[in-house]
């Protein structure tokens, strides 16, 4: 590592010795002189370390430029202002459409259940009319299918951009700091909230029945 030369150290010591008995009577020119001596003594050190510092700073600047380009490629603004809000609107529309359709179907079914069947012809006409209403309500599936495709496309877009960004960050394996558990995650863990399972992932009703029977027989054994 670079250090001050003996000559420079001697100059600083001489200056300090010359001024040590002045009892605090130091002028601005004395201070300026000391600064001059000190900076002169450091010149050699700075000259030696400058190329290394310059190289490091250039590398950092290059990395910042690269990162800025990666962030631009991420198109985060497009995601935030356009794609994600649009996907949210699509999902809201899906919820609304399925709710409307369900209500229509259920209303028709409830009216059929409570209809007066004493006049067979009138009852048949009534039921046929309600069946048509149910078929019409089921057309929601076509539109929600298209909306879901748009949401899936947005998720794929985000996945591709974020994955590419993470790859280009060149993070070493296991470099990520484990995320702290959020309040929502804690609630889900403690209250065992997984949400609906996909086909084949959860247990079936017959599995549940077997498990309950088994658990009950284990409990019963305690009382034998």
């Amino acid at each position, binding site marked *: 590592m670079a250090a001050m030369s003996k000559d420079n150290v001697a100059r600083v010591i001489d200056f300090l010795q010359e001024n040590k008995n002045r009892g605090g009577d130091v002028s601005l020119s004395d201070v300026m002189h000391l600064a001059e001596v000190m900076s002169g003594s450091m010149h050699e050190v700075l000259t030696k370390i400058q190329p290394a510092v310059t190289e490091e700073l250039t590398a950092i600047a290059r990395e910042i430029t690269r990162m800025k380009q990666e962030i631009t490629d991420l198109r985060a603004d497009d995601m935030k202002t356009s794609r994600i809000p649009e996907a949210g609107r699509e999902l809201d529309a899906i919820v609304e459409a399925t709710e409307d359709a369900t209500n229509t179907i259920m209303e028709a079914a409830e009216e059929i259940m409570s209809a007066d069947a004493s006049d067979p012809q009138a009852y048949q006409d009534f039921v046929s009319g309600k069946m048509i209403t149910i078929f019409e309500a089921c057309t929601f599936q076509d539109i929600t299918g298209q909306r879901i495709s748009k949401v899936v496309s947005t998720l794929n877009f985000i996945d591709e951009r974020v994955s590419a960004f993470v790859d280009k960050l060149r993070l070493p394996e296991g470099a990520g700091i484990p995320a702290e558990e959020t309040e929502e995650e804690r609630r889900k863990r403690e209250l065992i909230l997984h949400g609906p399972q996909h086909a084949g992932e959860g247990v079936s*009703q017959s599995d*549940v029945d077997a498990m309950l029977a088994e658990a009950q027989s284990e409990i019963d054994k305690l009382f034998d």
Partner: protein
Amino acid sequence: MALDLQMPVLVVDDYKTMIRIIRNLLKQLGFEDIDDAADGTEALEKMKQRRYGLVISDWNMEPMTGYELLKQVRADGSLSKTPFIMVTAESKTENVIAAKKAGVNNYIVKPFNAQTLKGKIEAVFSD
């Protein structure tokens, strides 16, 4: 305990459509006195005001889940004997075991049909 179609039944679900479906199925089975609540908190308040013969509850609700409701019901001396059926999309093994340990009388996995609901209600009252 015998099955009494006149007894009041409390259906707890945060999804109005599901309440409507269960209500209609219960009516088909012959139950007439059916009440509902949108989550565990509302259900618990109603249960403290009225003695229900059966509670049919969803699991995943805010702010109080069906699982918390079940535990609170079992911990309350005046409510602890109330028959309790969980009707839920939570179909992991740990959910079923946790519910059983908490004292659930039966467990129905969504989606379910009228026959399953009928069978489970009958099983609860034949035990």
